[in-house]
C-alpha cells in the first residue's frame, strides 16, 4: 500500500517536471522596451516632484536610451532561441534517473517503509499483546489527566514512578494522594522520600516537613525517623543523627534488611558508637550467616557476592542501582581501581540512559570517584 503511494508521488513529480519539455514555447517577452518606457515615466515623475533638475532629467533620459540600445545589441549577438530534440531527450532521461535513483536509493537507506504510524491514542487502545509497563503507565496517566481527582490512581502509579527513577513525578503523585485521600504516615513518608530522591539524596525543607507530618501522625514510624536522622546528618548535627539511628537499629526486628543500611550510615558518620548499637546484629539471613563466619571467611564471602553482582551486571548492564551497589562495595572493600573500572563499565552500559547514568555519576562523585 505504502509503495503505491510512493509510486504515485514519484510519478506525479516526474510528470510535472517533464511536462514543459513536451510543449513548444513562445518567444520570450520583450521586457527591455517595457522597462525603458517605465524608466522614462519614472524620470518624469521625479522631475515633477523636483527630485531631479531639468537638465539632469534630460541626461538621464539619454542614459536610459543608451542602455536600451546596448541590451538590444547584446540580445541580437546571443542569437535566437534554440531547442533540439536530442537535448530534450537527454534532459528527460536525466530527470527520470535523478528522480527515481536519488529518491529510491536514499529512501531505501534511511526510510522505514514497514513501520506504521503509531499515534499514542491508538496504542493506548490497542489490546496489550505483551505486558508493557510503560504503556500501562501511559494508560493510567491518560486516565488521571481526565480524572485528576482520582486519588487511588495516583497511589497506584506513585511507587512505579519511584522505581523508574521519575522522582519528581513520584513526589507529585504522592502529594496528590495526600491531598485527595488524606494524610497517613506511609503517604507522607513516601512523599518525603520521593522529594529526597528528586534532590539527589538531599533532605529538602519540604521533604523534612513531610516526614515531620508523618511523625505527628505516628511518632514511632521508623522510615520517617530514618530520614529525620538523615536530615540532621546533612545539617551537620552528627550526634543527633547517630542518636536517632542508633535507637532505630535497636528497635529493628531481626529480619529488617534496612537495619544494615542504617548501621552503615552510622559508621559513615565517623563518631564513636553509642552504647545502644553494641548489640549490632546483621539483619538478613544472609547477613547473619556471613556475620557468623570468621573474619577471613567473611571477607571471602562478601567478595563472592560482589563477584556475583559484577558477573550479573556484565551480562545485563541496565541496572543503575546494581552498578551503584557494586561501586560502593568496591570502595568499602578498599579496591578503588576496581571501583573505577566498574564506573567506566557502568558509563558504557548506561550510555543511552542519561538519567540512570547521572545517578551512578552522582554516587560516584560522592565517593570521590569523579572524573
Amino acid at each position, binding site marked *: 500500500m505504502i509503495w503505491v503511494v510512493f509510486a504515485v508521488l514519484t510519478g506525479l513529480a516526474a510528470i510535472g517536471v517533464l511536462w514543459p*519539455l513536451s510543449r513548444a514555447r513562445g518567444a520570450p517577452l520583450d521586457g527591455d522596451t517595457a*522597462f525603458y518606457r517605465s524608466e522614462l515615466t519614472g524620470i518624469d515623475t521625479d522631475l515633477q516632484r523636483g527630485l531631479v533638475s531639468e537638465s539632469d532629467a534630460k541626461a538621464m533620459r539619454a542614459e536610459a536610451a543608451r542602455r536600451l540600445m546596448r541590451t538590444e545589441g547584446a540580445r541580437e549577438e546571443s542569437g535566437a532561441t534554440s531547442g533540439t530534440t536530442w537535448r530534450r531527450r537527454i534532459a528527460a532521461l536525466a530527470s527520470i534517473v535523478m528522480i527515481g535513483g*536519488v529518491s529510491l536509493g536514499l529512501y531505501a537507506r534511511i526510510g522505514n517503509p514497514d513501520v506504521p*504510524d*503509531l499515534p499514542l491514542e491508538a496504542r493506548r487502545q490497542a489490546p496489550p499483546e505483551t505486558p508493557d509497563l510503560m504503556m500501562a503507565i501511559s494508560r493510567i496517566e491518560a486516565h488521571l489527566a481526565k480524572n485528576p481527582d482520582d486519588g487511588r490512581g495516583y497511589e497506584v502509579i506513585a511507587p512505579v514512578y519511584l522505581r523508574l527513577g521519575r522522582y519528581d513525578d513520584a513526589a507529585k503523585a504522592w502529594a496528590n494522594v495526600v491531598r485527595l485521600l488524606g494524610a497517613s504516615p506511609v503517604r507522607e513518608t513516601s512523599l518525603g522520600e520521593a522529594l529526597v530522591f528528586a534532590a539527589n539524596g538531599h533532605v529538602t525543607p519540604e521533604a523534612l516537613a513531610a516526614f515531620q507530618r508523618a511523625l505527628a501522625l505516628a511518632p514511632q514510624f521508623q522510615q520517617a525517623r530514618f530520614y529525620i536522622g538523615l536530615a540532621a546528618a546533612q545539617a551537620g548535627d552528627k550526634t543527633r543523627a547517630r542518636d536517632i539511628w542508633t535507637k532505630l537499629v535497636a528497635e529493628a526486628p531481626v529480619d529488617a534488611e534496612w537495619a544494615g543500611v542504617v548501621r552503615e550510615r552510622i559508621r559513615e558518620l565517623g563518631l564513636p558508637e553509642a552504647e545502644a548499637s553494641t548489640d549490632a546484629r546483621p539483619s538478613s539471613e544472609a547477613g547473619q550467616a556471613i556475620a557468623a563466619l570468621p573474619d577471613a571467611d567473611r571477607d571471602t564471602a562478601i567478595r563472592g557476592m560482589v563477584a556475583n553482582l559484577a558477573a550479573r551486571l556484565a551480562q545485563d548492564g541496565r541496572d543503575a542501582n546494581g552498578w551503584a551497589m557494586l561501586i560502593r562495595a568496591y570502595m568499602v572493600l578498599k579496591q578503588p581501581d576496581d571501583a573505577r573500572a566498574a564506573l567506566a563499565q557502568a558509563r558504557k552500559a548506561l550510555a543511552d540512559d542519561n538519567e540512570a547514568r547521572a545517578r551512578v555519576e552522582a554516587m560516584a562523585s560522592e565517593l570521590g570517584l569523579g572524573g
Partner: protein
Amino acid sequence: MIVETGHYALVLALALALVQATLPLWGSRKNDPALMAMAPSAAIIQFILVAIAFGALTWAYLTSDFSLANVVQNSHSQKPLIYKLSGVWGNHEGSMLLWVLILAFFGALVAVGGRRTPQNLLATTLAVQGWISGAFLLFILLTSNPFARMLPPPAEGNDLNPILQDPGLAIHPPLLYLGYVGFSITFSFAAAALINGRIDAQWARYVRPWTLIAWIFLTLGIAMGSYWAYYTLGWGGFWFWDPVENASLMPWLAGTALLHSATVMEKRDALKIWTIFLAILAFSLSLLGTFLVRSGVLTSVHAFATDPQRGVFILAILVFFIGGSLALFALRGPLLKAGGIFAPVSREGALVLNNLLLTTSCATVFVGTLYPLALEALTGDKISVGPPFFNYTFVPLFVPIFLAMPLGQVLAWKRGDLLGAAQRLVVALIVAICGGLILAAMQGEPVISAVFAGLSLFVIVGAFVEIWGRISGGGLSPSVMFARATGLPWSAWGTAIAHAGVGVSLLGLAATGWGVEKILAMRPGDHVAVGPYEVTLDKVEPRPGPNYDETVAHMTIRSGGNAISTIEPSRKFYRARQMTTTDAGLRTFSLGQIYAVVTEQNSNGEIDVRLYWKPYVALIWIGAIIMALGGAISLADRRLRVGVARRARQAAMQPAE
C-alpha cells in the same frame, strides 16, 4: 503511513531540487526554452513535496506519535494543542524543516509570480535556488532527520521546556525565517545575474519586491523576538546584544543597505557591483546566523569540536555558497560597465553614505559576535563582549545615519543642492529642537535622552518634508492637496513611512533613559510611587496551576489617587522540571508601560518587587511595525512592477488628464 509518506516526500524533494539545480541551468546556457521551463515546474512541485513532509511531521506531533525520536524529545501527550503545534519547529530538526519549507515556498512564489521575468534570468535564479534547497535537504536527511524512528516507541515524551511554551515563541521563528530565507531569493537573483552576465537597472527592478518582502519579515521577526525577551525574561531589557540576536541583526543591516543601493541601481544603473555584493552578503549573513544558532558553536565551542557532524555540514554549505558566489563575483565583476554618473552631493551620494555606514555598523556587530568565538577557539580564553562594546561602536556609527536620513530624502538625483536641502529641513530641525527641549523639561535628566529624542523627531518630521513640499504650496484647497497626495507614487509614501518608523523606534529607545526603576521589599498594603503612577501591593496569594505552583501578587495602579488598573505579576514553579519562571505584570498607559516583577516571598511576609515605569517604551516595537508597513506600501506600488509597465505605457499614450 502518513509519517513515512512525509519522509519519502522529503527525499523526493531532494531529487527535484537536483533536477531544478542542473537542467534549467543547461537550458539557459543553450538558450533552450523547454529546458528552462522545467525550473518553475520543479520549484512548485518541490514546494508541494516539502509541504507534505512538514504536514506529516505536524500530524505526528498532533497525534503524539512517539515512534518518532523527534516527537519523543520535544513533545508530551498532555501538552496544550498550540504547543504541540509550535513544538514542530521548537527544536533543531523541525526548525530546519521549516527553514527548507520557507525556502521552497519562496522558490514556488518566484516560479508563479516571475512569469514576467525574462526566462533566462528566471531559470538560472531557480537553478541557484535549487542548489540551496538541495544542500539543506541533504543536511536534514543525513544529519538532522526529523523522521528518524524510535522503536519500540516509548509511552511518553519529554516535555517542552516551560520557557519555550509561549505563544510569542510559536510565531517568532517562522517570521524570522521568512526574513532570513527571503534573502536567498535576492542571492539567487544575484548569482544568476553573475552567471548570465547581464546586470543592469532592469535586474534591480526584478529583485526589488523580493528584497522588500524579506526585509519586512525580518524587521517584524526581530521586533517580535525582542518583545518576547522583554516580557518573558523578566529583566525589563529588550535587546541583550546576544549572539543569537546579533545573528538576526546582521542580515537586517546588510538587507537594509541592499534595499537602498538597489534603488540607486534601478534608477540610475549605478552601484551595480556594490548591489550584487550586498545581495550576496545579506544571504551569507543569514547563513552565518543559521550556522551560529544551529551548529551549537554558541553553546559551546567544545561541544562543536566533539560532535562536529552537523556544524561541519552547515559550515561546508556556508563555505560553498559564500565562496562560490564570491568567486563568481570576482570573475564577472570586472566585466560590469559603469552606469550613470552622479555628483557626491546627490541622492545617490547620500545613499552611498547610508550604505557605507550600514555595512560598517554591520561589520562591528560581526566583530563583536565572532571575536569571542575566535579567541576561544584560538587561545582558550573566554571573554564576553557585552553591551558596552556595542554602545561604543554601533551607536556612533548610527547617529550619522539618523542625521543623513532626512537629508537624503530631499536631495535631488544626480546632482543635489546641499544648502537648499538643508533649508527645506529647517522646519524639521525646529520641531526637533523644540520637541527635545519640551521633553527635557517634562522628563528631566538624562540630557542624552532629550538629545536622542530630538534627533528622532528630526527623523520623523524630516521623513515627510519632501512629500509635504510636493502636496502643499500657495494656499491650495484641502481637496487639491488630497488629490496630489494620492497622486504620489506609493513607493514615495512607503519610503517616508518606513523612515518615520525608524524615528519612532528611536524615540522609544531614547526614552528608556527616562525610565524609573524601583527595587524594594513590600508588604501587602504598602504603596510606592513609580514615575507618574502609584502602585499598591494588595495581597500575595498562591494560585494552583495545572503543572506549576504560582505565587501571584495583586497590585493596583493609581494615578492622582484614582485606581486605574491592576496588574498581577507572578512566579511560577514548574514541579516537573523544578524550574521557576517569572511572569511580569505589564500595563500600557499612553505608550509607556508599568512593568512589575516579583520574587519569592520572604519569611517575614515581605516580597521583593522590581517595578519599572518605562515611558514611551511601546514606541520601540510600534516603530518597527511602522517600518514594515512602509515596506509593504512600497511593495504595493504597481508602477514599479516590470510588465505592468506595458499597461503604463498604453496609459501614457493617451492624452494627459
